[in-house]
C-alpha cells in the first residue's frame, strides 16, 4: 500500500464510496433527506454542519452501524467499490472490518490497553504470532499518537486513561484492523491542541493509503485536514466540493452563513 504514497496529491482519485438518494428515518422522523455524495479514495472528506443536522447519522450509514438501532430505516443506494453495501448478500460484519469507525464519545473496552488495540487483529486473525501482534499494537499506538504515554503500562485498563487518551486509544484500535475507509466522528472533541495536532498528522498520513471521512465542528480543522467538504443542514446535503472552494467561495448562502458563524 505504501507504493501509492508517493503519488501527487492533485491526482484525481477514484471513487471509493458513492451514495445515491440516501434517506434515513428514525421511526417517523426524517433525519437524512435525499443525499448524494461521492467519497474519493485516498482523500480526507470533512462533514460539517450544525448540531443535529444528521452528520453522525449519515456517517453511520456508511458502515451500516445504523443496523443496531431498531427504529432506524435507510433507503437509497450506497456503493463501496461499486458494490451495494445494503445488498442482502453483503455481510455487515465483513463490511465493518473494511470500513472502520471512531466514535464521537471515546468507548474503550474494559480491558487492558494492549487488549483494546489487539482486539480487531485478533478477531480477524491479522497476526500469525505474538511477536507480530506486539508489532501491530505498537505501530497502531504510535499512529494514534499515544505510544509514548502508555508504553510502560500496556497492561493497565484502557478505561483508566484520561478522556483524550481514551479517544486516541480508540483511534489506534480502529487503525489496527487496517480498514480501507476510516470514519471518524468528531475524533478531536475531547483532545487538547497538541493531541489534536498529532491526530491531524495521523489523518494526513492515513490519507496516503485510505479514504478518511471526518465529522468536525471546527472549521479550521476541516480546512486544515480535508480536501473535500460536505455541508449538511437539517438533514440535507447543502453543498459538497473542494474544501478550498467551500471555505473561500461557497455557492449556497447557508454554507456561507454557517462558516462565517451566522447559523449553527
Amino acid at each position, binding site marked *: 500500500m505504501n507504493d501509492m504514497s508517493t503519488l501527487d496529491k492533485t491526482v484525481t482519485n477514484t471513487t471509493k464510496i458513492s451514495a445515491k438518494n440516501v434517506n434515513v428515518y428514525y421511526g417517523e422522523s426524517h433525519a437524512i433527506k435525499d443525499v448524494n455524495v461521492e467519497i474519493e479514495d485516498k482523500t480526507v472528506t470533512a462533514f460539517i454542519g450544525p448540531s443535529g443536522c444528521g452528520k453522525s447519522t449519515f456517517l453511520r450509514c456508511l*458502515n451500516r*452501524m445504523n443496523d*443496531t438501532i*431498531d427504529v432506524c430505516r435507510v433507503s437509497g443506494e450506497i456503493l463501496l467499490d461499486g458494490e451495494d453495501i445494503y445488498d442482502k448478500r453483503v455481510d455487515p*460484519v*465483513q*463490511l*465493518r*472490518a*473494511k470500513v*472502520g*469507525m471512531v*466514535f464521537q*464519545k471515546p*468507548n*474503550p*473496552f*474494559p*480491558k487492558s490497553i494492549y487488549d483494546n488495540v489487539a*482486539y*480487531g487483529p485478533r*478477531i*480477524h486473525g491479522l497476526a500469525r504470532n505474538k511477536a507480530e501482534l506486539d508489532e501491530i499494537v505498537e505501530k497502531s499506538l504510535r499512529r494514534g499518537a499515544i505510544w509514548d504515554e502508555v508504553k510502560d503500562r500496556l497492561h493497565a485498563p484502557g*478505561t483508566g486513561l484520561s478522556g483524550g487518551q481514551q479517544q486516541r486509544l*480508540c483511534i489506534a*484500535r*480502529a487503525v489496527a*484492523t487496517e480498514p480501507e475507509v476510516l470514519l471518524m466522528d468528531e475524533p478531536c472533541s475531547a483532545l487538547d491542541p497538541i493531541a489534536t495536532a498529532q491526530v491531524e498528522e495521523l489523518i494526513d498520513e492515513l490519507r496516503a493509503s485510505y479514504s478518511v471521512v471526518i465529522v468536525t465542528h471546527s472549521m479550521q480543522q476541516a480546512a486544515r485536514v480535508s480536501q473535500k467538504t460536505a455541508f449538511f443542514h437539517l438533514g440535507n446535503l447543502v453543498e459538497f466540493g473542494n474544501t478550498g472552494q467551500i471555505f473561500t467561495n461557497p455557492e449556497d448562502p447557508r454554507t456561507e452563513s454557517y462558516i462565517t458563524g451566522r447559523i449553527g
Partner: protein
Amino acid sequence: MPTFWLVILLCVIAAAGYVLGRQRALSSAGGDARALHSLPAYYGYNVGLSTLVPALGLLVVWLLAQPMLIENRVSGMIPAEAIPEGTTLGLVMSDVRRVAEGLDIAVAEGVLTSEQVRNMRSEFSDIRGRLGEVGVALGSDVRPEVFNAAQAYRSSSATGHTAMVIAVALVALVGLGLSYSKTNKDFRARNTVERAVMALLILAASLAILTTIGIVLSMLFETRNFFGLHSWTDFFFGGTWAPNFRGDSELSILPLLWGTLYISFIALLVAVPIGLFAAIYLSEYAGPAVRAFAKPLLEILAGIPTIVYGLFALLTVGPLLVRIFGQGENGVLGVEWMSGATSVLTAGVVMGIMLIPFVSSLSDDIINAVPQAMRDGSLGLGATKSETVRQVVLPAALPGIVGAILLAASRAIGETMIVVMGAGAIAKFSANPLESMTTITTRIVSQLTGDTDFASPETLVAFALGLTLFVLTLGLNVLALYIVRKYREQYD
C-alpha cells in the same frame, strides 16, 4: 375505663385541639390567614400532635411496664416452700395469672360480684368449680398462696389501670394546654410539624431495623440455650445427625450442610447457564416483540409459590428421574441406580428451574447496563454479535453477574419447600446425586413440627441451625451486594 376507650378519648381531645389551635391562630392574626407564619391547618396539627403523641407514648410505655412491675411484686409474695417439687416459679405465676383472669371474667359475666370476690377465701369456696362455670379451666385446686397472690395481682392491676387512665389523660391535657398557649401568628407551626413528620419516618425506619435485631437476638438467645445443653464441638464438627428422645442425640450440622450445599450446587448448575443464556438472548438478540412477550413470561415463573415447585418435584420430576435412572416402568436406561423419587437431583433440578428467572432477570438488568457505546465499538471493528457478547459485554458485566449468582446461591441455600418435598429426609454424606439427602431448612421444619418441648436440645437445635443458615446467607448477600454495587459505580 378500658384502654380502647381511652385511646378514642385521646383522639377526641386531639381533634378538639386541632380545631382550637387553628381558631386561635386565625384570631391572633385578626382572621387574615396571610398574616400567619404558616397555613392555619399547621397550627391545628401542632396542637393535635402535641396532645396525642406524648399521651400515646406514655400509654404504650405504661402498658409494657405495668405487667412486669406487678409480676415482680406478686412473685415476691410466693414463698419458696409454696413451689411444689418439679415446677418452677414461672409455672406458679402462670397459675396466678390464670386465676386472676378467671376472677375478672367471672365478675364481668356477673357470676360473682366484686364484693363476693373480695371476701372469698380459698379455704371455703370452690374456686376451681366457679371458674370452670365461666370457661376458665384450672389443672388443680387453687392453693391459698396462689389465690392470695391472684387477689393481689387483681388489685394491683386495677389500681395501676386507674392510675394509667388519669396520667395519660393529664399528659394529653397538659400537651394541649402548652401548645395552645404557644399558638400565635408568629409561631413557626409549619417547622414543628415538619419535625414531627420526620420523627414519624425515623420511627418507621427504626422499627424495621429493630425487628431484625430482635429476631437475631432471639435466635442468639435460644442458640445459647442450646449450646448450654449440647456440646458445640459435636454441633460443628460431629459427623452424624441422629436426633432421638432418649437424651443422647447426635446433632451435627455437617451432614445437613453437605446436603444443603450439594443441592444448591446442582440448582446453580441448572439455573446459571440457562438463566444467563436466556438473559443474553433477551437483551442482545431478541427483537422488541419477542422481548415484550418473553420477559413477562419468565417473570411469571418467579411468581410461582415454591410449594407448587415442590409439587412439581414430587409428582413430575422425581418420577421422571426414576423412570430414567431406575426401574420405574422398566426404566429407560435399564439401570437400577435410583429407587425413590426424592433425591438430590430432583430437588436440585426443580430448585434450579425456580432460580432461572431470578438469575436471568438480574443478569438482564446488568447486561443492559453495559453501555451501547461499548457494543458499537466492538461491532464497528467488525466483530460479530456473539464475539461482542463474549469478549466485551460479558467481561464488562461479569462482576455484576457473579453478584447475581451469589444472590441466587443464597436463595438456594435458604429454600425450604422444594427440598422438604423433593430431597428426602436422610442426613448423610454421599456424593451420589440419585440418593435422597436432607438440608438444614428441612431439619428445622421437622425439629419444630409436632409435639415439641422448647427445653430439649432436639428442639433448640433448630435455632442453632437457623442462626448458622442466617449467617451463611447474610454473608453471601453482603458479598453479592458489595460486588454488584462496586460494579454499578463503574458506569455512573
